[in-house]
């Protein structure tokens, strides 16, 4: 009896692990798309609205869903805070702080890290160039992430169930 319960638990765990992997794969392209949208909004705020950076970041991040919204909100809060931090430090800290909750990978992190060095420190034209570059890089990542999701998304689900079944078989 105990063995039967154990087997059921193993099968359940395997299935769940597979689903979790597949979900992470599906969340990544969605979050990259959100990042892209936010950066494009930031570009508009900076290039046409001449909005100060803190306000621009806050309004660019407002329509997003968690956890990507947290990056923008975190950076904006730090910029307005009393810490005397540079825009670069504020952005880096916000990215570090919110990163664990996202499904994003190292490639996206590198894009955001590069963006930190140019955020707010140059004229409008230059800001646009840097934001456009970041958006273009993220778009490439998004294509790749969507492709991975298409190819491996369902595979992970079945793999989870099958791995659970394999363990059950081995157990008996």
């Amino acid at each position, binding site marked *: 009896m105990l063995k039967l319960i154990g087997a059921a638990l193993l099968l359940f765990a395997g299935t769940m692990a597979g689903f979790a992997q597949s979900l992470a794969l599906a969340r990544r392209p969605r979050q990259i798309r959100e990042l892209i949208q936010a950066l494009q909004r930031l570009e508009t705020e900076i*290039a046409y609205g*001449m909005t100060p*950076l803190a306000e621009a970041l806050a309004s660019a991040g407002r329509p997003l869903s968690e956890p990507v919204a947290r990056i923008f909100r975190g950076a904006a809060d730090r910029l307005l805070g009393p810490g*005397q931090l540079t*825009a670069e430090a504020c952005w880096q800290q916000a990215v570090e702080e919110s990163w664990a909750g996202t499904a994003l990978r190292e490639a996206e992190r590198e894009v955001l890290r590069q963006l930190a060095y140019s955020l*707010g*420190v*140059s*004229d409008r034209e230059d*800001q646009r160039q840097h934001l456009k570059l970041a958006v273009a890089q993220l778009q490439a990542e998004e294509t790749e992430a969507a492709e991975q999701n298409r190819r491996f998304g369902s595979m992970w689900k079945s793999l989870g169930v099958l791995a659970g079944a394999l363990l059950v078989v081995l157990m008996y």
Partner: protein
Amino acid sequence: MLESITAVLPPPLRSALTRLPAQTAALVEEVRIREGRPLEIYLAEDSSFVTPTGVLTSSAEAAYRPTRDDCRILLDLLTEHSVYTREEELKKGYLAMAGGHRVGLAGRAVVEQGKVKLLRDIAGFNLRIAREWKGAAEAILPYLLEEGGAGVHSTLLLSPPQQGKTTVIRDLARLLSSGGGPAGVSRRLAPLKVAVVDERSEIAACVRGVPTFDVGPRTDVLDGCPKAEGMMMMIRSLSPHVLIADEIGRPEDAEAVLEAAHAGIRVVLTAHAGSLEDAKRRPVLRRLLEDGAFARTLLLRRTRGAPTAAAIYGRDGRRLDPAGAASPAGMSGAAGGGGARC
């Protein structure tokens, strides 16, 4: 006063400047930050270098040398992390700070079609500390008053940089708009409507349109507006008796000044020049002086820290004060007598 600027300084500079002795800190007029070169401060006209621990020194070796990072952080903090919102100011080579302070900038100019589009790689900062000095213009005011005290003469204040022009003009705005006249002035001045065009936010140091310096109860300030355009706007819409602006010199400024003169509005303006002859060599000022736009031209000089009138000229360029007489009491009689024809 130094506290208001230390907030924007990167940590090494802040720690050096906050350790200056209190008496020294109270006298600082300029803080000069140049990448890789010694940190310098100006106390009135004396220059000193500053060590990392806030000790004044004359040795360039012992002084703190701001790094590239210091300059980068300083620009970031000065612009509230948004350099792109300050492009117009960067083009003109300065940034206005809250509190009326101004930061002059040096760096690499980006030129487009022969005009400066922007400053990049900014490596030189001159933090000029604005100080409100009520009464700075009291000694000068008597020379500017019309006979009977009904109003004020159109006046041009001349001086080289850092002789207190802006301090004087700010206090003039306050005195003219308050009326009554300061202690020691026999003629009573009727309060006047004063309009200030404050292109660089130095005169009134407006925060969200409200002056933070006392510029008088009947003073309107047009903040951050180009002078020529601002003068025309104020003439048309605010019916001022007196129009005040700092550092004129562009051709379009002359048009606006003449427009004001023809509209019966008095102007009180400043310009950079070492003497009346210097001023006459500048095309815009020469045109205004030849047209007789100014009933008074004052040459300002700083003596023992206080701005005083070193020479006073009438509309025709004739000197009104007895040459060399520097005491205000001695000159006020001369100004009264000499001003009869204006």
